[in-house]
């Protein structure tokens, strides 16, 4: 039986038939030649860069009026993921009541002469093309450590959680190779973006300290960016980014927080073992095993957690490739040595025939641990972010090492009934804790009140968005100090309980400190819009 086809059925069927191809003649004679070339021919150079030269973006700010076509054209013509963009539009504004000023700014990778992303990459997943100077990212080499994201002062590399790697603008190198214009150049209705050939030494020469691509942008001396922004108008002295006063939190990077704090506990515990070996060799013999084992386990835990940070951990074994330039590589290398020495120390403390090696191995482990902590600190110092400045980062990292090392050792020694040694470490922990926390509060107070302090922005972020964490740390500091003092004043099981409590309060406090370390940092970037 066939039922009669209704108008509804007919129209539903018709709606599903695609007719564009069938109904309209195709017109693409000479389809291999890009039609748009007639408009973009003059926007790209005729000649390839010669030795010592490279391609660079040129932006005519007077022609950039904020249509944002470049962003979506880049997205569509490069086939990027739905929410992925390699180009961005920001805003500079300022001026006076009489002479208001605003300027939209198109920006992408600056294909720097000295790319910080490339230097930071532990597995050499970046390549500065010898002929074109284009800074390419080797997607299949990337392990997703995201260090380049921290290193780039222009917020260019973007991490894709879905893919576990970073991707970025490659100046449409395959188009340039075929004498086609990059997507953004093709798509700007006003021809504001061009490709130029520049001399690398000229770029370097002009990137003197204090030079900036645009107001508020990072010092060009760092990476020698090649993009040039030109305008015939005068930029007012108070021109600032649309998002200049935006207070925002950066990524917390939980695995890194865990890795840093745990590895620093381990380093501190080994350091405590070294101290005991020097000060009281007879004690050392009886406490070395628990200290070595706990230190080793905590370190392994830290290293295991750090792997969670990698988008593609299986490639991490290549991390030695970046040793020449990357503090990330050096950290991984140093931690490898640290873990090896720690394992040796564990073996020597457990296996009597090796007992003679225990003391030297303890010292070696401590030495490598400190090298590791220093490398950890350098990872952040090397990003040149103010809040991660050397003195601040080293104080925090080594302060944490000593604080949690002594508090941990204290608790451990109390557990194993070495009351006197435990007390000594608890006293040390109390002094370090007070000094470190006091120093931190002074830093915060100073940065908050001094507008010109380079870390003023971070201080504002802390004060405006993270104040509950500051309060929590005050509470934790008080609790840790109180329990620590109780531990010092008591003995036996009570002491152990208080020492462990004091350690845990301190541990949580330092986890929070490290959360603030990551989230309150001001990541330098190109001028952004008012909000997203």
């Amino acid at each position: 039986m066939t039922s009669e086809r209704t108008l509804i059925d007919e129209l539903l069927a018709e709606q599903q038939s695609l007719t564009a191809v069938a109904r309209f003649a195709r017109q693409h004679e000479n389809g291999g030649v890009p039609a748009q070339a007639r408009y973009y021919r003059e926007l790209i150079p005729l000649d390839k860069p010669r030795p010592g030269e490279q391609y660079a973006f040129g932006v005519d700010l007077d022609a950039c009026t904020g249509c944002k076509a470049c962003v979506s054209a880049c997205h569509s013509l490069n086939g990027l993921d739905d929410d992925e963009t390699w180009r961005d539009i920001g805003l500079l504004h300022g001026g006076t009541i009489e002479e208001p000023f605003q300027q939209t700014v198109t920006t992408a990778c600056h294909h720097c002469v000295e790319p910080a992303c490339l230097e930071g990459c532990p597995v050499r997943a970046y390549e500065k093309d010898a002929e074109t100077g284009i800074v390419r990212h080797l997607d299949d080499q990337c392990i997703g450590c995201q260090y380049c994201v921290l290193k780039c002062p222009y917020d260019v590399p973007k991490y894709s959680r879905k893919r576990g790697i970073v991707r970025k603008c490659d100046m449409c190198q395959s188009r340039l190779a075929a004498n086609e214009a990059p997507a953004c150049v093709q798509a700007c209705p006003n021809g504001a973006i061009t490709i130029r050939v520049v001399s690398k030494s000229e770029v370097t020469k002009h990137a003197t300290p204090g030079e900036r691509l645009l107001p508020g942008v990072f010092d060009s001396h760092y990476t020698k960016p090649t993009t040039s922004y030109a305008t015939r108008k005068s930029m007012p002295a108070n021109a600032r980014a649309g998002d200049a006063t935006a207070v925002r939190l950066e990524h917390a990077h939980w695995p890194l927080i865990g890795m840093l704090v745990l590895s620093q506990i381990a380093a501190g515990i080994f350091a405590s073992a070294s101290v005991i070996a020097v000060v009281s060799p007879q004690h050392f013999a009886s406490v070395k095993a628990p200290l070595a084992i706990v230190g080793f386990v905590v370190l392994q835990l830290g290293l295991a957690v750090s792997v969670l940070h990698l988008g593609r951990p299986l490639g991490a074994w290549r991390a030695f490739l970046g040793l020449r330039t990357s503090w990330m590589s050096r950290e991984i290398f140093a931690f490898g040595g640290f873990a090896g020495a720690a394992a040796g120390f564990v073996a020597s403390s457990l296996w009597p025939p090796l007992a003679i090696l225990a003391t030297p191995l303890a010292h070696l482990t401590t030495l490598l641990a400190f090298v590791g902590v220093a490398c950890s600190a350098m990872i952040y110092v090397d990003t040149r972010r103010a809040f991660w400045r050397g003195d601040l980062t080293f104080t925090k990292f080594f302060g944490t090492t000593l604080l949690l090392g002594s508090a941990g050792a204290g608790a451990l020694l109390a557990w194993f009934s070495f009351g006197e040694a435990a007390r000594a470490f608890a006293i040390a922990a109390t002094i370090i804790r007070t000094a470190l926390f006091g120093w931190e509060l002074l830093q915060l107070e100073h940065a908050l009140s001094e507008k010109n302090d380079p870390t003023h922005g971070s201080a504002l972020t802390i004060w405006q968005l993270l104040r509950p964490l500051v309060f929590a740390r005050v509470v934790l500091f008080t609790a840790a100090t109180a329990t620590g003092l109780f531990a010092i004043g008591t003995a036996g099981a009570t002491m152990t309980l208080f020492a462990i409590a004091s350690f845990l309060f301190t541990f949580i406090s330092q986890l929070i400190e490290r959360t603030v370390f990551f989230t309150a940092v001001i990541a330098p970037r190109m001028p952004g819009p008012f909000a997203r």
Partner: protein
Amino acid sequence: MKTLITKAEEMLRAWDGPLTQDLVQQPGMFGLGKVPSRLAPDDTTTMVCGYCSTGCGLKVHLKDGQGINLSGDTDYPVNLGMACPKGWEALTPLAADDRATTPLLRNAEGQLEAVDWDRALVVFCERFKEIIAKHGPESVAWLGTGQITVEELAFLGALGKFGMGLVHGDGNTRQCMATAAVAYKHSFGFDAPPYTYADFEESDVIVLVGSNLCIAHPIMWQRVMRNRHRPEIIVVDPRKTETAMAATQHYAITPKSDLTLLYGLANILIASGWVDREFIATNTTGWDEFSAFVVQFTTERVCAETGLSAEEIWHIADTINRGKRVSFWWTMGVNQGHEATRTAQAIINLALMTGNIGRPGTGANSITGQCNAMGSRLFSNTSNLLGGRDFLKAEDREKVAGILGIDPARIPQRNSLAYDQIVDGITSGKIKGLWVVATNGAHSWIHRKAFEDFAGKLDFLVVQDMYATTETAQIADLVLPAAGWGEKEGTLINSERRFGLVKKVARAPGQALSDFNICKLIAQYWGCGEMFSRWTSPEAVFQILKELSRRQPCDITGIVDYRMIDECGGVQWPWAEREGTSNFEHRTSNIERPEAERRLFEDGKFFTPDGRARFLFEAPRAAAENVDAEFPFVLLTGRGTSSQWHTQTRTGKSDVLRRLYPAEVYVEMNPLDATRLAVVEHSMVAIRSRRGEIRATAFLTTTVQAGHVFVPMHYAVTNQLTNPEFDPYSRQPSYKSCAVAIRGLPDGRWRVGSG
């Protein structure tokens, strides 16, 4: 040794692999240049964009007939291969997961429930017929759009008025273009924007009034940038917009003082003898009255009312006088005002008196809003009878009835209520049934609160839309799922009168049907299917529209078919049969081809009965609501960014576009005011008008004058504030001026010093 290490190292670097392959490009062919291999097309087709009235040509990259990507169409005379972000992302919103995929009917529990088309259509007809039977034909109305095709608009309008017997239908075009339409109709005798985009390139003086071209119509700004005559670009706008920044002269006048300024300029031009007496004498009427009228607009008065200095006003006049080819352009800053029609006509007057019309690079040029606002103006059968005719004229009714083969008595002999009057009718209980097609009034209508109350006032509200999630669909009794742009065929008319083609490159989701097909079904279920037996396909309707246009100013009888539109890169009206000479070689057929860019009034003849343009004018008057002690700020509204479209039902569905505008509503205010109110940037402020209060994040910028604030229209809350005041001639709402108060709010953040 070193090289050995280097070599070994290189071997450990993965230069290729699946992740690298993801981004590999290959020649796209079809004139595309390189494309991502993943998205390599097996064919392409061209069509016009369905967002704004610029009407850009887009080249859709097809795979198995389906659009997988797109880029600008290099050969299209409008955009020369360019597109704004909305255009680049035009295919994305089609795949949104909140598309309406089946008809939805509100059930007894008050929930929208999926039903089949048969049930939906039966309910549609039963409920509306019930209401009509009880309250008369005036108790059911429709609100249409400028977003669907000409053929669909004509079907909707003919079905509504001739088939269903309704009297009242209007469109969201009332919100954007009504003023220009009325101004042209009265000044030129027909709603006829005279220009072609080439005029942007030909002018030596470009005057933009209330138009932020860079953001609202970036591809038109492209044409300005292609101007090789180093034009003076004058921008009149209370804000220092992107366009004002790019202009050579910017005049930040007091909001709604534009009419006074324009009359003042006329006065200076006349007093200085900077007028084209010959053109005025030969081609216009009303000159004596007009020139006598503007005498009262002394420079002193204009200075006082506009906030400009005498030098500035004289400089504008002088620039206009020195220009050989002066073009005047206006957009929503003019159209959305309480005396908008007179303001538009004041611009027209300037063009007429200086003889800047009908020549390359001249004109009094309204830049339209929506992709098919112009189609709506001619063929929606709402304020005009089909083809730009008059419901009140018996001969027009008979003409249309004859062409359509219907009884002239079926054509209403009076005009429809305008949008605001329909809203009032609903509020007062006269209108009980409403059919909303492709518009989102619950977001966009001025003082939108009225719309929210509809749910309680209307007996039956039908919303026909691509999305079931619009603010308006959410309050509907019945939702009809519509196919969108790219899922159907038809034509759109752009700002410069160009018919462009929309093609079918995507499958509508589920049971969604084109508005054309929905009209066809309603006609059948209503019982008037016979009347539309010739309306079989969009192209068949296009042939009917050609007949309707015959010997009208918008005569398109010379456009043979869709293919001709496709091959010519769009065709501007008029293009009458056997008209014109062709400079084009015949490529594939013997059809006479129009020049790519044509303008009107080259012969100085207008569409009025006497062929003369009219000088129309009226004394300026204050807006209904002005600032006072309680509400000391003027609220300006407008487009936020080029990546946002109106109520965001589509642009909100693209991740890329969403990255390009602030997610939350914000208010731009001057730092002076912020200091006075102790508002810091990025903090929350409350904005209160007599109609409501909203919260927004403060952005401090000198581009907004002290005493003004600007809030983009794309956020649903904005129109809780606006004041329902209308231009008396065009009934267009005055969105750009109402009085508000601002106060800082604690936003949960601690601040230094206020902690």
